């Protein structure tokens, strides 16, 4: 019992600040390194019975269309050869995935033994008690491969998708593990054109004032000084507005849904200013930026038409790929800009993966083995190397070979280590709240309303929805 508690403290340094966390991570890395040097890991690995569940068929449900499913599909033959198990992967797009997941999680028995869920839905799915608690699996050397290394997962990503305190209904609190970062994680980083900045004698922006000044200075007929997601898109509020908002001192929500005082601060001065900053960029942004979603911005940057933007770090792969990008050798990355005195940070994105509580009990241990296999260091490295998918393990970000190949990984790691979880992800209405924000902010960018009106409208609609849902008295 004592050992188990000790193991939990070691594996999940929840109450630690960032410095403690990094220290713990370093210690874990050192320990692993020392063990590896003396061949102890290898010995454990050799002793581990990979074939103990041979003949079992595992059904995995995960998102399709984001690259991870292709990578997993590549690895199925290797998995089946090593474990003797078979695996069937179902990978619908996000919308159908959510529906299918909920249908299975709410059924008497889930047809899927392992399910991947979006981090923003952790409260909805893990908080509803649908997933198996994993601490006993993690701590059991008979069930968990010795080199799986739970402590290697990025801690903010783990807190975002895996740790949940059922008593208080709070994600990221306590030491109970219900999922691990599965498929990809990630945050937003700053992308800029090194050649344009050098030619103009500018330094990459560290503050939003510098970002705006660079946008103004670098705008030409061929190149937009800056871009952002201006379309009515999932990431308009989550990446562009939210990053500006929190790095100029904004706090999205105050209070707690459980005490019914969960109040939004969208119409705060910081909220209005964050949106106004985007409106002020319109003269220097691509002409059609209000129609720019994810693909348009990646295309625009890769074809050399955008000088700088903040964006999901996951696009670094295609942007730095000479086969897909005209600016592969001209692009630089860095932390997102922030006001003086503020920490550069952005939103925590990513996926979790877990075992449904109502999965076939006879297959749960086999499902856990499959889960550990597909979230191992080796697989994570493969995801980064082959598809440039955002890593969720520290070792993948710091792998010398990968780092030499993809220099942006250092900035991605910094961003992922300081990423901030979306406060509204604590409640199941998260997606609906986000939709309201995207629509109103898109309207403001289209010139239909000003920033103050847009933020005020979001505030009113959010408060109304929070009251109806019982999160605000």
């Amino acid at each position, binding site marked *: 019992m004592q050992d188990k508690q000790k193991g939990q403290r070691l594996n999940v340094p929840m109450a630690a600040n960032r410095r403690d966390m990094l220290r713990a991570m370093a210690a874990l890395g050192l320990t692993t390194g020392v063990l590896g040097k003396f061949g102890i890991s290898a010995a454990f690995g050799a002793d581990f019975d990979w074939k103990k569940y041979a003949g079992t068929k595992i059904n995995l449900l995960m998102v399709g269309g984001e690259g991870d499913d292709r990578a997993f599909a590549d690895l199925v033959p290797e998995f089946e050869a090593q474990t003797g198990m078979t695996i069937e992967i179902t990978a619908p797009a996000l919308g159908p995935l959510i*529906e299918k997941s*909920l249908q299975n999680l709410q059924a008497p028995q889930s047809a899927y033994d392992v399910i991947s869920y979006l981090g923003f839905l952790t409260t909805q799915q893990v908080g509803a008690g649908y997933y198996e608690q994993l601490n006993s699996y993690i701590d059991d050397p008979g069930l968990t491969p010795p080199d799986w290394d739970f402590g290697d997962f990025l801690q903010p990503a783990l807190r975002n998708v895996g740790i949940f305190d059922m008593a208080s209904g709070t994600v990221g609190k306590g030491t109970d593990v219900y999922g691990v970062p599965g498929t990809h994680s990630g945050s937003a980083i700053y992308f800029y054109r090194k050649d344009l900045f050098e030619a103009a004698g500018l330094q990459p922006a560290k503050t939003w004032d510098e970002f705006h000044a660079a946008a103004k200075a670098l705008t030409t007929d061929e190149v937009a000084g800056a871009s952002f997601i201006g379309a009515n898109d999932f990431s308009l509020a989550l990446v562009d507005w939210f990053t500006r908002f929190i790095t100029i001192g904004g706090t999205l929500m105050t209070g707690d849904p459980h005490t019914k005082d969960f109040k939004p601060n969208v119409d705060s001065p910081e909220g209005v200013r964050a949106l106004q900053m985007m409106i002020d960029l319109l003269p220097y942004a691509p002409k059609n930026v209000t129609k720019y979603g994810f693909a348009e911005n990646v295309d625009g940057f890769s074809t050399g038409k955008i000088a700088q933007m903040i964006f999901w770090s996951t696009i670094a792969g295609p942007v730095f790929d000479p086969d897909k990008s005209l600016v592969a050798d001209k692009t630089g990355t860095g932390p997102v800009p922030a006001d003086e005195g503020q920490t550069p940070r952005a939103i925590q994105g990513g996926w979790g993966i877990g075992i449904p509580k109502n999965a076939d009990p006879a297959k749960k241990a086999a499902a856990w083995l499959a889960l550990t296999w597909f979230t191992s260091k080796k697989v994570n490295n493969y995801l980064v190397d082959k598809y440039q998918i955002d890593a969720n393990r520290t070792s993948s970000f710091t792998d010398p070979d990968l780092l030499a190949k993809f220099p942006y990984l250092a900035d991605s790691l910094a961003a992922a280590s300081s990423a901030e979880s979306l406060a509204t992800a604590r409640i199941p209405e998260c*997606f609906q709240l986000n939709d309201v924000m995207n629509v109103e902010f898109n309207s403001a960018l289209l010139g239909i309303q000003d920033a103050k009106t847009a933020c005020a409208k979001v505030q009113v609609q959010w408060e109304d929805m929070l009251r109806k849902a019982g999160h605000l008295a």
Partner: protein
Amino acid sequence: MSLAAAPAPPRSVFGKPENPRRTVLVLLGPCIVYLVLFSIYPLFHSLRLSFTDMSAAAGGGDWVGLKNYADLLVDPLFWNAAKNSAIMVVLSVGIQIVLGVALAMFFNLHLKGSWIVRGILMLPMLMTPIVVGLMWRALLNPDWGLIDWAIRLTGLEPPDWLGSVNMAIVTLVLVDCWQWTPFVFLIVFARLQALPLDIFEAANVDGAGPIVTFRRITLPMLMPAIVFAGVFRAVDAFRSFDLVFGLSYGGPARGTTTLSFFAFQHGFQFQNYGYAAAIAYAMLIILSVGTTVMLRYAQIRPETGR
């Protein structure tokens, strides 16, 4: 003395005495089972759902009576979606009927080689709406779309097809017309081919000109086909979802959010299953009333057009 033998009861194909009730059950049974399982049960299940607050948040959901319907009536987003659906129906169907009839009249001239053009004209109708949406989204892309590029070649500035709230719904209507005008044309053209020639010959003898002939003879006789095509297209346009999904995703600023897309958002994005079911039933009610009125109008006499 011999008694006349009673006629043998009719036998079924299986050689057993025929039991009409059993035969009916055997023949209709599979069909009834299919209908109950895949039509009637889902219909009643979703109706029941619309009276609950079932959602991802609330789980199984409690019975809330007419609350979802009451909420719909005061939800400005529902009325916005209803307005967009109404615009889609009125504009799309109106344009498609005018163009469809015009095309039918044109092809009825049987010009040389017109059969080839007629075949090509049908192609959009054969495409999946989601593909049509994505294809037009690419064609109208303001940065690299073929259509904007072609317009710029002429020295003109292309419209903001999908970027302005007012223009986006017009674009949606235009793309819908591109795909479905051939359907109206096909129905009207088939009817046109079947019209009796003697009436036209009589009109010609009486000295009726082409405009009078069209207005007083052709159009009234085409009216049942036009109404049929109109009702069919109106129902389809009212339920328009996949085109919206592929082309504009309901934006900008909810300018192209139709009722189907609104129901999709609540059902699949926000997981408010009860509310989404209520939206679907509100659509069913509107459609039932609308089609009843239109079909009543369709009961016209071709001779008089009334």
